[in-house]
């Protein structure tokens, strides 16, 4: 059992590290937000599962499950709201972004940075 907990701990911490790596390395704001929210939530989920397995009690399991559910409810909302605010204030997209559907729908110019 302790081996499963150990594997979950290492993999979860690795995913948190990948999220931070994406935040530091990706070229524009929207990609950074994508890396931070998805990989960060997944890493936290794995760590909380590890905690639930390790303690094995009903109380710790329910708390972990609540945190996981709440994380998965709130992270997409926060990402959506912050991406919308960034797009409205014209934070530039990466110069090589393929398609900007929102700009095409509204007939406005896509906020790109010079590539």
């Amino acid at each position: 059992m302790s081996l499963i907990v150990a594997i979950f701990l290492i993999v979860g911490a690795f995913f948190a590290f990948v999220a931070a790596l994406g935040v530091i390395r990706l070229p524009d704001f929207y990609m950074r937000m994508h890396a931070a929210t998805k990989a960060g939530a997944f890493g936290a989920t794995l760590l909380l599962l590890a905690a639930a397995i390790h303690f094995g009690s009903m109380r710790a399991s329910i708390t972990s499950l609540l945190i996981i559910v709440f994380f998965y409810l709130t992270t997409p909302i926060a990402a959506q709201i912050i991406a919308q605010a960034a797009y409205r204030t014209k934070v530039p997209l990466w110069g090589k972004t393929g398609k900007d559907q929102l700009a095409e729908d509204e007939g406005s110019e896509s906020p790109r940075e010079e590539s």
Partner: protein
Amino acid sequence: MYFEELGTPLAIATLIGSLFLLAALSLALVRIVRGPTAFDRIVALDLTGGICLCVIVFFAIHFDQPVLLDAAFAIALVSFLATVAFARYLGGGGEQ
């Protein structure tokens, strides 16, 4: 020395995982300092909150204190509110 029982898989995993989390925290802080726009800083701050949650879970497992999971729950609640408030503030608020 906390890691004197380095023989068990749990102690090794705690050590390696803490190093991963330390690296992640450093990278997120670099993005907070460097970030070209305020939105980059907010996203990095949000990620910092998530990594702090991970650190608290590590503490809970390493010191065998399930009470610390409640602290993680509080962080999960509050960091979300901070992100939404910052986004509304910088994005000009209301509908468009």
